[in-house]
């Protein structure tokens, strides 16, 4: 069992090694990082007194910084190639200056760096969930957020220094405009976040919902907090700060929840196994897989070697051009193709889940593939049967017309001519030519009847069976035809098979005469393992194409209508070999 994914929005598949990393090590690392963080914050000046004085808001701030740092460590370990982990760790570190602002006197360095975390947060929100900044607008807004955060924080610190004019004036102006800048960037961030949400598919939304929700609340609260801060004192200052901090605590927790959920997704694979084993109706596999992968629009295609393509459970061809937001994952069994899943591109983020689900469903997929293969064959058979019925119908009409226009008219004329002869009975000189005329008409009627009977069923087939009939075809062919018959005494062939094989050889030899410019041809009839092989080859021009020329298509129909299969090997300039295998058990 192997899966290969390709998709229009595919990200490079991460070879996940997280499974081999021990959860214990990750937890220890996270705790160590958190401990270090607390230690740094405490050593830098946040003593007990400070903590008690600011109580709730200090604790919430610390919680935000700690959760970003610690969950960032966990994510960086779980998804080493995803930038979200490092960004969260960075945010946790950048939070330290913010946490210093509770000191009786804000240290200058803390003031100068206390806005940096906002830039990182903007970067993180926009880079979610892949960790990369997708479009130009995302990059521009992130860049602006960093610049604004650094410049405005620096201005905030510079204002407190005894600066010469006009530098001081500039610093004050910058500091005064900080709330407008915060509003502007928060607005841009919100717009981009909402746009991403609207573009996301159902499956993607499900994955990004918690983090998106928390980040929207955090962004709005951040803007509110900045505005409230700028017009002190006002009653909204504390609630705004609390809401913002709470929202920032929620972001990494939401991410953690998403991670847990993806773990639970894997748990659903176990459910899938149980469901599949209890399955009563065989055609619900797609629904089961769709439920496991949480992708209602999932399409499953099953491989049919016969038609060299994927078909759905009903045997209809599946299009592998997935379109935007969709991706294709191939499921193979050993070297042989088994199935394809056309799924939401978001699932490319969870290759292990897809793989696990496919592995769990392998047996059911194989069963379903056989069924789909059968349905595809039935569909094809029904089509060729319909064409054969139409052919039979038109043949009967032709025979009726031939009888009506030929034999019946001639016999009528015989009756009339004999009537005239009867009337002329007294004058023998007149009767004799009339009788001769009647005789000629009867012989012509016999000729017509022979042609009609041949159209209904070749008489030679009745008299000599397939081998003799094919020899007769070879005997009258303008091209020298060698016939080898290896029909063995395995009992007579079914009549339908004989007829089909006869017409196939007839049409194939006619094609050789008409198109191949061949000097010699051969016909081989061989019977083994309950199959009749009919092979007609020539040394002519080759290049025969079943897609063109209805003759070959007619042959294919005849073969398929008898449960057989036609193959043509016709390289240009190297002759043509036509093979039909007909079941005749």
């Amino acid at each position, binding site marked *: 069992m192997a899966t290969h994914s390709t998709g229009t929005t595919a990200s490079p598949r991460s070879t996940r090694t997280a499974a081999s990393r021990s959860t214990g090590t990750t937890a220890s690392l996270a705790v160590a990082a958190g401990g270090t963080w607390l230690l740094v914050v405490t050593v830098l000046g946040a003593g007990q007194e400070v903590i008690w004085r600011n109580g709730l808001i200090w604790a919430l701030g610390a919680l935000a910084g700690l959760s970003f740092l610690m969950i960032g460590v966990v994510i960086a370990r779980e998804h080493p190639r995803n930038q979200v982990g490092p960004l969260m760790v960075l945010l946790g570190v950048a939070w330290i200056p913010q946490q210093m602002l509770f000191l009786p006197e804000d240290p200058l360095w803390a003031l100068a760096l206390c806005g940096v975390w906002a830039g990182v947060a903007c970067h993180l929100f926009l880079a979610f969930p892949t960790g990369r900044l997708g479009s130009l607008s995302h990059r521009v807004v992130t860049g602006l957020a960093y610049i604004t955060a650094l410049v405005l924080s620096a201005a905030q610190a510079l204002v407190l220094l005894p600066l010469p004019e006009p530098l001081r004036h500039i610093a004050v102006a910058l500091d005064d405009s900080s709330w407008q800048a915060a509003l502007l960037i928060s607005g841009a961030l919100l717009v981009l976040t909402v746009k991403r949400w609207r573009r996301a598919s159902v499956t993607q939304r499900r994955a990004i919902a918690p983090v998106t929700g928390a980040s929207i609340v955090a962004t709005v609260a951040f803007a509110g907090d900045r505005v409230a801060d700028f017009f002190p004192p006002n009653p909204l200052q504390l609630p705004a700060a609390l809401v913002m901090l709470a929202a920032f605590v929620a972001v990494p927790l939401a991410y953690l929840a998403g991670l847990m959920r993806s773990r639970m997704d894997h748990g659903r694979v176990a459910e899938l196994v149980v469901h599949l084993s209890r399955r009563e109706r065989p055609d619900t596999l797609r629904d089961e897989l769709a439920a496991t992968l949480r992708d209602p629009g999932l399409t499953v295609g099953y491989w049919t070697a016969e038609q060299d393509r994927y078909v759905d459970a009903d045997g209809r061809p599946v299009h592998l051009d997935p379109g935007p937001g969709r991706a294709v994952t191939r499921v193979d069994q050993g070297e042989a193709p088994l199935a394809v899943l056309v799924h939401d591109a978001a699932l490319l983020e969870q290759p292990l889940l897809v793989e696990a689900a496919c592995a769990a469903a392998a047996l059911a997929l194989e069963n379903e593939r056989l069924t789909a293969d059968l349905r595809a064959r039935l569909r094809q058979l029904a089509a060729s049967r319909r064409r054969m019925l139409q052919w039979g119908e038109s043949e009967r009409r032709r025979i009726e017309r031939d009888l009506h226009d030929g034999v019946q008219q001639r016999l009528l004329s015989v009756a009339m001519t004999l009537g005239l002869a009867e009337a002329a009975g007294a004058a023998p000189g007149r009767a004799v030519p009339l009788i001769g005329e009647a005789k000629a008409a*009867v*012989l012509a009627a*016999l000729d017509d009847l022979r042609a009609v009977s*041949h159209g209904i069923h070749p008489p*030679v087939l*009745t*008299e000599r069976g397939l081998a003799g009939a094919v020899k*007769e075809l070879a*005997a*009258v062919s303008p091209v020298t035809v060698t016939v080898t018959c290896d029909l063995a005494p395995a009992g007579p062939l079914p009549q339908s098979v004989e007829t089909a094989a006869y017409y196939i050889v007839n049409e194939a030899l006619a094609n050789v005469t008409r198109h191949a410019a061949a000097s010699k041809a051969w016909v081989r009839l061989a019977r083994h393992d309950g199959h009749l092989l009919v092979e007609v080859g020539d040394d002519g021009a080759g290049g025969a194409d079943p897609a063109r020329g209805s003759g070959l298509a007619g042959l294919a129909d005849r073969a398929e209508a008898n449960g057989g299969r036609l193959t043509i090997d016709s390289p240009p300039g190297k002759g043509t070999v036509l093979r039909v295998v007909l079941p005749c058990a």
Partner: protein
Amino acid sequence: MRVAICEDSTLFREGLARLLAESGFAVAACVDNADELLTHVAQDPPEVAVLDIRLPPTHTDEGLRAAVTLRERHPEVGVLVLSQYVRVSYAVELLGGRTEGVGYLLKDRVSDLAEFAAAIRRVGSGGSVLDPVVVEQLVGRHRQPGDPLGRLTERERAVLRLMAEGRTNMAIAERLAIAERTVEKHCTSIFAKLDLEASAHDHRRVLAVLRYLNA
């Protein structure tokens, strides 16, 4: 000339018997299956056996197989096969490399009494008769450009066809309303153009022509 008839259709069998009697033949036997014919020929060989291809019990090719057997067992008995259809492959099988005393005709040919009686006499006296339809099919195979048959004149092709039907030079001359000497000249020319060895014997000549046409 004594003739045995083997035909399963009563209508045709009785009609044929009447027709032959009318034309001065003695009908030695009138049977409806191949086994009876073989038995009868073994006991009291006629000069010609006329038989159908489709005979009981399977109504497939019993008559053809019986004809081949007859020719093996009783080379002295002429065999004339009559059928609703004529096939090149049957002709080849029936002749089997020996054109003496054998004929293969469409049943339709009984309508020309004189011609049919002549055919039976020819088979009975060791000659051969091949239906024009079979000859036409054989000639028809040689339509590809570059075939030596294309080098023959219209008249030579007509002579070739009649030769293949098993007719003598005299009969050909009569048919084409030309002198027998002219027919002989045509024959020499045909054999030269087709690179065949000329032969004085009619049946060897037929064999050579048929072999050429069926090659």
